[in-house]
């Protein structure tokens, strides 16, 4: 555990579990929701297991996150639950998943279908605590993004726009920045860093 680079403020929590792991280039913080299209048989199987169990973990994978970087930084994932599913025009299963919390992945095993399972522990991140402070402009600007994008808007029936952590987390998810930078907002940077970053892009 000492080899992980943890940003100050990240603490291990009690909960341990073995969960399916889904490697995806998707950055999701607690309370974040995204739609996924599932077509590979092994992931269909995983989804069906996940619905009767405790969900699964999206492990942020991207070519930009280089091998040596992931060796030194913490392998973390977004523990999600399936909140809705539907079928696309083309008949492909679409699921909406919502992040419950972040987890650290301690070990990974494969089963006969080449499905990954990981031993995980929950970690705390600023984005899973709630702070009811209206951060005016960031909230308003985010509200506009929702209003302008139906498909995003529909994912969030409940928008906690008066929670500065919630607002900031959603901004980090949707801003056009490389995934390795987003990754760093979990493993390296604090809430303050993240806030300063988003503000300098959105406000100024």
């Amino acid at each position, binding site marked *: 555990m000492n080899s992980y680079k943890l940003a100050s403020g990240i603490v291990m929590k009690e909960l341990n579990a073995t969960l399916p792991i889904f490697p995806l280039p998707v950055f999701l913080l607690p309370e974040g929701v995204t739609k996924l*299209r599932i077509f590979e048989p092994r992931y269909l199987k995983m989804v069906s297991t996940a619905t009767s169990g405790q969900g699964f973990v999206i492990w942020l994978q991207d070519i930009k996150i280089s091998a040596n970087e992931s060796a030194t930084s913490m392998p973390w994932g977004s523990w999600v639950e399936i909140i809705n599913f539907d079928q696309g025009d083309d008949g492909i299963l679409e699921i909406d998943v919502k992040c419950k919390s972040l987890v650290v992945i301690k070990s990974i095993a494969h089963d006969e279908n080449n499905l990954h399972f990981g031993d995980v522990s929950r970690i705390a991140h600023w984005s899973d605590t709630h702070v009811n402070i209206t951060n005016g402009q960031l909230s308003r600007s985010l509200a506009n993004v929702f209003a302008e994008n139906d498909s995003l808007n529909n994912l969030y029936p409940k928008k906690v726009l008066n929670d500065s952590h919630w607002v900031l987390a959603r901004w980090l998810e*949707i801003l*056009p920045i490389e995934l390795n930078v987003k990754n760093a907002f979990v493993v390296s940077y604090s809430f303050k860093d993240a806030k300063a970053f988003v503000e*300098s892009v959105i406000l*100024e």
Partner: protein
Amino acid sequence: MQTNLLSRPTSAKSTSMSDKINHPQLCQWLESVATNRDKVAFTHLFHFFAPKILRIARGKFPNEAQANEVVQDTMSNVWRKAHLFNQDKGAATTWVYTVMRNVTFDMLRKIQGNKEDNLSDDIWPVAEKMSCEDEVFEDHLANENLLDVIEALPQAQQDVVKGFYFREMSQEQLAVHLNLPLGTVKSRLRLALGKLKVQLGEQHD
């Protein structure tokens, strides 16, 4: 609230209405508001309905401000829509009840469902009573704002997102959103990333 039957006759104001609701009087006030924008008639209506609406709203909304909003919205709809009341089609109480129920329904939906779509007037038209068979739904009220929104929702936009799910903005989208030139947005992103690297250096070197 404590009730005291004996004191009833002494309360001239509240007994003036007598046991039964004075329907012709309510109708006359409503007509007067509709045709003359009569503020005195409206004040009478307000004093009759507002406390009752407040009481009912409190049963549905624990939050005092929301209950007050029901009163405010209902009575302001009565003021603005009085001309849609048709006394041949039913009692004034029925019409005001419809207005109140619709305001309440839309507000509850807004609070619970997080959707502000004001569907009530389509479900329970305020302009016509439902008992007139041929004309049902004929002349319903439409919420102008909502109509704008619905009309403005372009099909093209839905087509573009088909098969693509919003996960991240493009730099172009961000530029449009911030109402800035693309170049400015790109340099802002670069600067912001630069600052991050400096901080990281300070922390870990």
